């Protein structure tokens, strides 16, 4: 018995959130195994073996797991998971996709997006777009949990777990991968970046978003946006920060031309330092900002970039 953590990865590497999920597993307590299910994913498995607290890495390396199709991943974990008291993964696009399928196959409920571990069976999680925090206790024999990565400090990469291959292969035969379009960028991944510079509808157009990108590049940060800016077509939708987009908690969050809708605040209010730049001094964003600057973003953002 112990805890199974399902790694979030791109086959050739592990995504940073996995180290946060292992931290949540350590808080629960118990022997921690890490499952890497993918294809040609040896590199991700080796990275996983270094995560502090992991005692064994299980690798299911087969073409059927290449794109983490929910049907195949869930079938694998539903068999494997019976030997554990807890199954954890990150509340990422992949985790949210396959995890409830695993829970249903095991006939247990899922606890989504926990932000703290109170004990081995009790957890806190946000509801109503983060406007309330529920403390829930599970009596299920196997606790299936997704973890909000930004709520747990990543474990160090100083361990050396053993790596074991899993021979079992399950192809549910229900779905197949066609293609993937990933935004190519040298910038850090939004949810793992130390600095995030976000723009809202106030930025006005895709072209004018350029000043946001420039400031982010100066700070070595990622670019984010509000749902309004995404819906207006200024930036691609994977940059959306908010309850229905990405949840971020960087060291520094700069909100430019963002009014501060509840939806958006739910995605960034755990940032360490928040800076708001908005010409409307009544904007709700100022109520959560450590430093507020009432100014036109088209003056302030380039000036900030110059002076940093």
């Amino acid at each position, binding site marked *: 018995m112990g805890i199974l953590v399902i790694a979030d990865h791109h086959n050739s590497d592990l995504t940073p959130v996995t180290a946060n999920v292992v931290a949540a597993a350590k808080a629960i307590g118990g022997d921690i195994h890490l499952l890497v299910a993918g294809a040609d994913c040896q590199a991700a498995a080796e990275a996983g073996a270094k995560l502090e607290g992991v005692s064994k890495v299980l690798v299911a390396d087969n073409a059927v797991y290449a*794109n983490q199709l929910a049907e195949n991943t869930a079938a694998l974990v539903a068999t494997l998971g019976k030997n554990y008291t807890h199954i954890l993964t990150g509340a990422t696009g992949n985790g949210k996709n*396959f995890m409830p399928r695993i*829970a249903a196959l095991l006939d247990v409920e899922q606890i989504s997006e926990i932000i703290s571990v109170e004990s081995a069976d009790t957890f806190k999680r946000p509801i*109503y777009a983060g406007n309330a925090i529920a403390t829930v206790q599970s009596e299920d024999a196997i606790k299936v949990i997704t973890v909000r990565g930004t709520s747990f400090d990543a474990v160090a990469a100083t361990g050396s777990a053993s790596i074991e291959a899993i021979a079992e292969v399950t192809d549910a035969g229900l779905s197949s*991968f066609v293609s993937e379009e990933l935004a190519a960028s040298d910038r850090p*991944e939004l949810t793992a970046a130390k600095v995030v510079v976000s723009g809202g509808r106030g930025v006005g157009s895709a072209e004018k978003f350029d000043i946001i990108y420039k400031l982010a590049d100066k700070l070595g940060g990622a670019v984010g946006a509000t749902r309004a800016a995404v819906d207006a077509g200024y930036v691609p939708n994977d940059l959306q920060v908010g*309850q229905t987009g990405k949840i971020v908690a960087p060291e520094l969050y700069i909100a430019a031309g963002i009014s501060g809708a509840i939806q958006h605040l739910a995605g960034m209010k755990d940032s360490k330092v928040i800076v708001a730049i908005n010409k409307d001094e009544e904007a709700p964003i100022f*109520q959560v900002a450590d430093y*507020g600057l009432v100014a036109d973003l088209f003056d302030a953002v380039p000036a900030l970039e110059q002076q940093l």
Partner: protein
Amino acid sequence: MKVLVAVKRVVDYNVKVRVKADQSGVDLTNVKMSMNPFCEIAVEEAVRLKEKGVATEVVAVSIGPKNAQEQLRTAMALGADRGILVETDEQLSSLAVAKILAKVAEEEQPQIILMGKQSIDTDNNQTTQMLAALAGFSQGAFAAGLVVEDGKATVEREIDGGMQTININLPAVISADLRLNEPRYAKLPDIMKAKKKPMDTKTPADYGVDTASKVKTLKVEPPAERSAGIKVGSVEELVDKLKNEAKVV
């Protein structure tokens, strides 16, 4: 083919909810209730499938209190042909909802089940995937595009960092993400017509589903408030604070 679309009655997305003083939950007395926004997108997609000639019938189903018939009437005003209300005053877990929907699917035999990716009250994001597992169907979660042809569905999905396209067998359960479509508004004549469309009322017991939950909510609290900081007068002052006070640059 038949399309089943599930809708949930939730607190309206414009309402700022308040936690009850006794920490038992959020206060929903006299609060405006509406169809979950992601469910509206699912209904729109189902109606479009009918308009394209892919679907022959759209059946809306809701699991909730008696008043959830309002949301079913809305779905019918938008174009669903009939409704099924599975009436319960309990707050059901996603697993219980998925079990009931699996039974409804067994009876109705839809080729496609559409639903929202998550409800804005519990924020679970589970039911679609659980239903697909229980029914043994393929799943297309977080759909931003849907094409149905030759007995298969091609689903464009929102993933971290971009988009993924997958081909899935039918029957399938598909969950709507924000950008799948822009839902229409119901027109007054359609709202009138919807009142005459058939609606069945059932209970979870009719489907033989045990709805007991193994997850207890011990308490519900407001989130830690973040207090407002200070206003700075200039970019220079901001840079100084970030460098010397916050020490984040």
